[in-house]
């Protein structure tokens, strides 16, 4: 399977989605991220805004769009917490940029690759979050890496369902 070849990459087109999907999916991700932990309590092992960022960055194959979406969603996520605004923003900005950059080079139709990328970017996001909070800002923060690992696994599980659903929403010519 040729997934990295430049010729194959050029053959792939950029996906397009209805404007409503572009607008409502991030908002729905933010709302559900704020709502579901009330019912799942300590088992809310997922990060829906990150999944939406990764999905659209991969699908659009555009690092700038991934950067902007990751930045916006991360800042809004930060605004819902009592923490500094920008920690999640920086983490998701990097994740969106990387997802958009990688999307140019790999076959985003391959579901396994998308899930593997989701897992890696989830871990990277957590690492950036801890780095900014502890090192850059010098704030105290206890961290549980097992919980972060479980969150990455949860993200993969949700992505396995969410990504195909969003694939159906794309505009096909």
């Amino acid at each position, binding site marked *: 399977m040729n997934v990295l070849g430049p010729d194959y990459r050029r053959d792939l087109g950029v996906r397009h989605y209805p404007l409503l999907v572009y607008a409502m999916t991030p908002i729905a991700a933010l709302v559900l991220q704020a709502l579901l932990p009330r019912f799942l309590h300590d088992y809310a092992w997922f990060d829906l805004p990150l999944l939406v960022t990764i999905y659209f960055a991969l699908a659009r194959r555009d690092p700038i769009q991934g*950067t902007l979406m990751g930045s916006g969603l991360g800042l*809004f996520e930060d605004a819902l917490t009592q923490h500094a605004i920008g920690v999640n923003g920086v983490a998701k900005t990097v994740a969106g940029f990387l997802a*958009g950059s990688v999307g140019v080079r790999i076959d985003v139709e391959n579901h396994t690759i998308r899930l593997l990328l989701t897992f890696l970017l989830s871990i990277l996001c957590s690492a950036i979050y801890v780095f900014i909070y502890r090192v850059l800002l010098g704030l105290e923060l206890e961290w549980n890496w097992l919980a972060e690992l479980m969150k990455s696994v949860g993200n993969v599980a949700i992505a396995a369902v969410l990504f195909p659903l969003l694939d159906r929403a794309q505009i096909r010519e």
Partner: protein
Amino acid sequence: MESFFARYRNLLVLLAILLAQIIGLAVQVHRTVSGRNTLDAPDESSVRLIRLWADAVVTPPEQLFHAAKMGTGSLWVDYLDLRQVREQNKDLQKTIDRLRLEQAELLEDAKQGQRLQSLMAFQEKYIYKTVAAQAIGSSGSDSSRVFYINKGSAEGLDRDMAVMTADGIVGKVREVYPHSAQVLAINDQTSGAGVILETTRLRGILRGNANGRLQIVGLLADQRIQSGEKVLTAGGDLIFPRGLPVGVVDKVVPDPDRDSFIDVIVKPAAHLNQLDEVLVITSTEPRFSTEQQQDLATSETLKGAEADAIKQQQKASQIMAERLPGLTDPNAPPPAAATTPGQTAQSGQTPAAPVVPPTPKLLPARRPDRFTPGAAPSPEASPAPPGEESKPEAKPAQKPEKPTQPRRNL
């Protein structure tokens, strides 16, 4: 130049956005005098606009969802699931009648207790007014234990108001929006509440750890702390009124960072993971009604009158003490004001003789000895010179000693 920007456009956009966010972070974080970095903003009364926007985006769907959930729940409970309601009503009516009687008794005790505490100038605050609210959302991050409630500044909420349930404290209001508020739960890492152990009376600071568990930090190792001991609010943080239940001691673990210190893991009294309805304490003024205030004023008046009466009694007893005869030594010089010779000569009056109290007279001893009062040592009774044996038994026979009057010795 144009080709440079076109070639590195993606990277430049990324760097610009990252730089803007990092500068924004640097603006938010302050360094305290002690050298620690903190997020506490100098102006606590303001809300960052982006938080307001995020709340405006997230809260309406959450409130809609909550209303739908409540509507569905009430439809089921109020109209569909009505089995055995009559029997329950009868039982509840009996319970209400019984509780009314108990409440009347307890109310009297409570009034008396408050009145006494006020008289003793206790500064303890009572929960005066609360606002019931529903938890509608969360932060969505497991590193941030905050949740949102559906009441805000329009309902009288303000920052740093305590939030509790009937079981115990829950957290404090951190941000206030027009129709919602952000509550920082007590099991968050950045929260802090002054607590006291009920039995051992040890005080500490309650906060959350990375797993969302409550722990009291900064306590010296103490063998008296046992599992099951109740933890109450200490009231020193000016947020939580004193004496509210916090939880019970679960276990004691050594502090990983400091020797001889321990962390007390606390099992919360309130179900922090299953919050639905909460109470926000909006006022902690003394809980006295107008009638009770009048009672207190009356008590204060009575207390003042009683103090006056005690003062009058003390004055009267002092006057009486001056008039009553006392034990006076006749040999003592008379008071200067009353017995000055000059004054006596001028007035020509006899100075008043000092009143001598009757002295009890001792009966003469039948067999006096040298210990008998008044038996002054005589030359005969003086110790014999060395070498000469004294015979005290023979002398009374030759010259019986006359019993003497006891010397008055005042």
